[in-house]
């Protein structure tokens, strides 16, 4: 038992010595002191509330940023002994502090567009100060290097911004998600993205339901009146109402509704189509259509009016087929 305790004691002792060796600052004004101060500020911050807490934790962040930047300055982190990562890591920590802690907008990924500029500022700061941290104007080769670096970082920021712009455009016109992006010299579509909800299909099914209500179980004379002279108008009215209920998106106005009626032996055929009038990968419009049959059902006078007329009257019965997606040459 004594032996186990000794081993445990020795382990703890070694661990403490190791920690002490790692964490004990070599002198008062050192990077380790700043990192330790940041942990101390975090600990004190947890014990306080309100503005004091935010202020102390913000100080902790600043100690941490300065400490890690200093540490990395002493021990640079490189990829393959060439690409220096120090400024990028410091830049990411600063952005986390500003976006996450001060602005509380870490979920707003668009803010990260300025990360390359933050990195550029940190890099430039190094060249605009001398060993005593005093401001100095860099010499011509350094100025040339800084101008090129600024341009490169600005270009990276622009690429990041374009990433967001392209994706926002696709979110505005989400019906394009099903298209082929193979010919684009600007973007490629990520593989394995889930199949999007087809807005055209959604609009068409939402239009079919009220059309069915309007045309089902109606006297045949009324059906003929509805289908022939003013069909386009009332179908468009339904379409407008459906569009008004959709979640607002720029692409909503690009979906049009068309209808076509054919006279058949058994009644009328009605084809309803939701048509995409926006751009597409092969220049053809996207079309969702459903063929409906409006059948004439003869009903005996008894069924209509038990007292009554000798005339045979007719009503309608409407059935629609499955919605089909197809291409339509514009």
């Amino acid at each position: 038992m004594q032996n186990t305790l000794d081993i445990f004691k020795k382990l703890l002792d070694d661990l403490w010595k190791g920690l002490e060796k790692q964490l004990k600052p070599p002198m008062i004004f050192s990077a380790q002191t700043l990192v330790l101060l940041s942990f101390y500020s975090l600990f004190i911050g947890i014990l306080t509330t309100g503005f004091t807490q935010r202020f102390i934790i913000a100080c902790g962040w600043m100690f941490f940023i300065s400490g890690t930047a200093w540490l990395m300055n002493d021990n640079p982190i490189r990829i393959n002994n060439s690409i220096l990562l120090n400024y990028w890591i410091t830049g990411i920590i600063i952005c986390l502090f500003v976006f996450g802690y001060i602005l509380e907008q870490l979920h707003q990924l668009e803010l990260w567009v300025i990360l390359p500029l933050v990195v550029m500022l940190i890099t430039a700061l190094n060249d605009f100060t001398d060993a005593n941290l005093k401001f100095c104007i860099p010499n011509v080769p350094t100025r040339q290097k800084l101008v090129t670096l600024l341009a490169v970082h600005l270009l990276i920021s622009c690429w990041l911004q374009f990433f967001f712009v392209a994706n926002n455009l696709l979110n505005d016109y989400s019906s394009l998600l099903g298209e082929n992006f193979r010919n684009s010299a600007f973007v490629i579509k990520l593989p394995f993205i889930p199949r999007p909800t087809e807005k055209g299909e959604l609009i068409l099914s939402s239009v079919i339901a009220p059309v069915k209500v309007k045309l089902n179980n109606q006297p045949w004379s009324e059906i003929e009146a509805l289908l022939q002279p003013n069909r386009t108008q009332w179908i468009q009215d339904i379409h407008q109402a459906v569009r008004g209920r959709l979640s607002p998106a720029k692409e909503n106005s690009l979906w049009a509704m068309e209808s076509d009626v054919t006279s058949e032996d058994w009644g009328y055929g009605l084809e309803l189509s939701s048509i995409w009038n926006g751009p597409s990968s092969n220049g053809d419009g996207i079309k969702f259509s459903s063929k409906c049959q409006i059948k004439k059902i003869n009903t005996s006078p008894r069924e209509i009016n038990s007292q009554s007329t000798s005339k045979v009257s007719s009503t309608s019965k409407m059935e629609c087929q499955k919605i089909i997606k197809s291409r339509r040459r514009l």
Partner: protein
Amino acid sequence: MFYLIILPIIFWQSLFLLIATTWDTFLFYRQLRVSRKIAIEYARTLNLFTLVLGWISFFIIISFLPQPTELRIISWLFFGRPFDMEENESQLNFFLYFLIIIITTTATKFAGMRVLQSLLQNFSPAGKNITHRKLDRKPLFTFTSEISIIFLSNILINTTIAILLFIKGLYS
């Protein structure tokens, strides 16, 4: 949600930078007779800043565009094809864009060169930066003013890029 990645534009713009820097360096060195190092540095920086200004203009313009024009741009960006345009109109537009790009990049590069010259003060055509050997070399063209060299260089750059895009179009 993010569905698109922008690797193709990064590839094409890097290629564009390479071609543009090569042409500019070649012409600055041969025509303006600055040292090789300075020619490379100026060419690289000017082309980078031209791209950045182009992007910034694009971001500003696209936020104010009416929907029909926005749809045309989307069609070019996503599908590499014209939308809602006759073939003649599309060819005319291509030619106009080509002209606009050449004129604006020439102006931008010239202004950028002046800013760089005042900032770095190390670019003096046919001045102290060149060696005796270089002075003896005859320029390829008779004109040697900065703006005409930039203009010529832009025509060469954009023609090279247009040829590359045409070849890409043939194979896609």
